[in-house]
């Protein structure tokens, strides 16, 4: 897995804010900008002074040892937790006071470390829930079955099938989401998130529980999703082959603080990162 995949990776340039983004994204507002973000749980500073900028079409990685606060960062970004300190700018807009649902409307979609599908609904229905905002008929026209209901539903179903085709899952459309194998559930979660038409996709350990060939396929698909939808992807992952293989900018978190952000090469040779993962050399 040591072959280089430079084809999709852009040239990374440093920003005054100590972050790096791809050169191609310099001209547009960054999709995400966190400034001095932090949250306390009681006396515990779970995340502190988290600063990060992500380019409009960047694939970014968030890594760190267990308990570093990676998922907490995702929960802050999606307002599952309200931050104690700092600001989050999405596409230049402050997200203070927004709810999780509103954050989604602002263009952030996510998956979960512990899979959260709508288990009693079919694969198709899971994606249709993701497409909820794209359908424009009212509850009343749904109950009365007006033409707008049929039109909107038909378009949504076609769109759902297109999304399923990304992972070749068309034939599982009518299966119960809860009955899918583990890997397929993870893929379905990504598709459901994509269905909400995000500009930033947050993936929490997308390769967890996958075998090496599934992971390799997933890597290709993440790049494909970025290229097709022109969105930014930020992922948490312990599989270093995946992170080093596709992430352009990598942010390393330890004890709730950013200890480095750089390219795969920077990170691999950074002594602070090595220390965080392996402990101090005696």
């Amino acid at each position, binding site marked *: 897995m040591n072959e280089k995949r430079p084809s999709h990776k852009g040239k990374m340039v440093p920003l005054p804010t100590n972050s790096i983004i791809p050169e191609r994204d310099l001209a547009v507002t960054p999709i995400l900008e966190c400034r001095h973000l932090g949250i306390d749980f009681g006396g515990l500073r779970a995340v502190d002074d988290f600063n990060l900028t992500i380019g409009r079409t960047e694939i970014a990685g968030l890594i760190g040892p267990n308990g570093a606060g990676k998922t907490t960062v995702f*929960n802050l970004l999606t307002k*599952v937790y309200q931050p104690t300190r700092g600001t989050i700018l999405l596409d230049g807009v402050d997200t203070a006071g927004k709810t999780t649902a509103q954050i989604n409307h602002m263009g952030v979609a996510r998956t979960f470390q512990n899979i959260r599908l709508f288990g009693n609904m079919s694969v198709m229905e899971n994606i249709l829930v993701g497409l909820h905002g794209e359908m424009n008929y009212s509850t009343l026209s749904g109950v009365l079955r007006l033409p707008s209901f049929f039109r909107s539903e038909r378009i949504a179903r076609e769109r759902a099938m297109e999304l399923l085709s990304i992972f070749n899952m068309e034939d599982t459309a009518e299966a119960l989401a809860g009955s899918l194998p583990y890997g397929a559930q993870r893929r379905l979660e990504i598709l459901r998130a994509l269905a909400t038409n995000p500009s930033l996709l947050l993936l929490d350990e997308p390769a967890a529980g996958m075998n090496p060939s599934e992971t390799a396929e997933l890597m290709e698909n993440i790049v494909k999703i970025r290229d097709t939808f022109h969105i930014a992807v930020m992922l948490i992952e312990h599989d270093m082959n995946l992170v080093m293989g596709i992430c352009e900018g990598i942010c390393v978190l330890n004890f709730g603080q950013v200890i480095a952000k750089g390219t795969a090469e920077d990170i691999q040779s950074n002594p602070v990162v090595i220390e965080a993962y392996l402990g101090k050399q005696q």
Partner: protein
Amino acid sequence: MVFFTYLISGISLGSVYAIIALGYTMVYGIAKMLNFAHGDVIMVGGYVCYIALNSLGLPAVLAVLLSMLACTVLGVVIEGLAYRPLRQAGSLAVLITAIGVSYFLQNAAQLIWGATPKNFISVVHFNLPAGLMRLGLSSEALITVLVCIIIMAVLTAFVNHSKLGKAMRACSEDKGAAQLMGINVNRTISMTFAIGSALAAIAGVLLCSSYPVLQPTTGSMPGIKAFTAAVFGGIGSIPGAFIGGLLLGIIESLAKAYISTTLANSIVFAVLIVILLVKPTGLLGKYAPEKV
């Protein structure tokens, strides 16, 4: 002076609610189920005591003990036959089964003892000094409050320090882990029902001593109110049940006296709603946020 009288009657009624609520809360804490039949166990306790006093001619203390024994057995049997087979089932299935048990107990009582109300003769047989009587304090009220405080103290010590009490707390936190530590979960739950039902018997006797009308539906409303009291204090919490029960009794008594007899129950429920809106897990309930 009149206020004092109502307050006392409220504390006494609240003590009965507290004893019933303890049964609810212990069962909920460990089995995570709303045992809707608990109120009807109270009624059975009342009838057994009535029979022991009037037909068997037993002394009051023996009658109460017999009633506790009968309810303990009843509680364990109900748990074993109706609830244990449903341990893996959804909470709604258990709830409906509990309702079935409640119907069963009410109708069985009606068949055995008839629908006509029985006039329960108080088990408390001493008189208070006239000075206290004039304050509106009755011997039943005094005994009720004392019994409630004793039960509360003993139960707290039991749950915190005895081996079975620790097993109960372990089961309520995590049944799987408790089992791995060598705790017999089924036996622990069974014992919880036994204790809860014995308390229900005491509550039944005390309730009927103060409000001497005994009929098959006697337990329903106090059952619902005690359930409310348990939620009020934070369901699963033993001190919560105590505080919830007392507050509920006092609010009910004062509302009856000063606002409206017909709306007293509604006022109690309205206070409950307000409390839950301000503190969604009750006064002493623990809030467990969902891990994302």
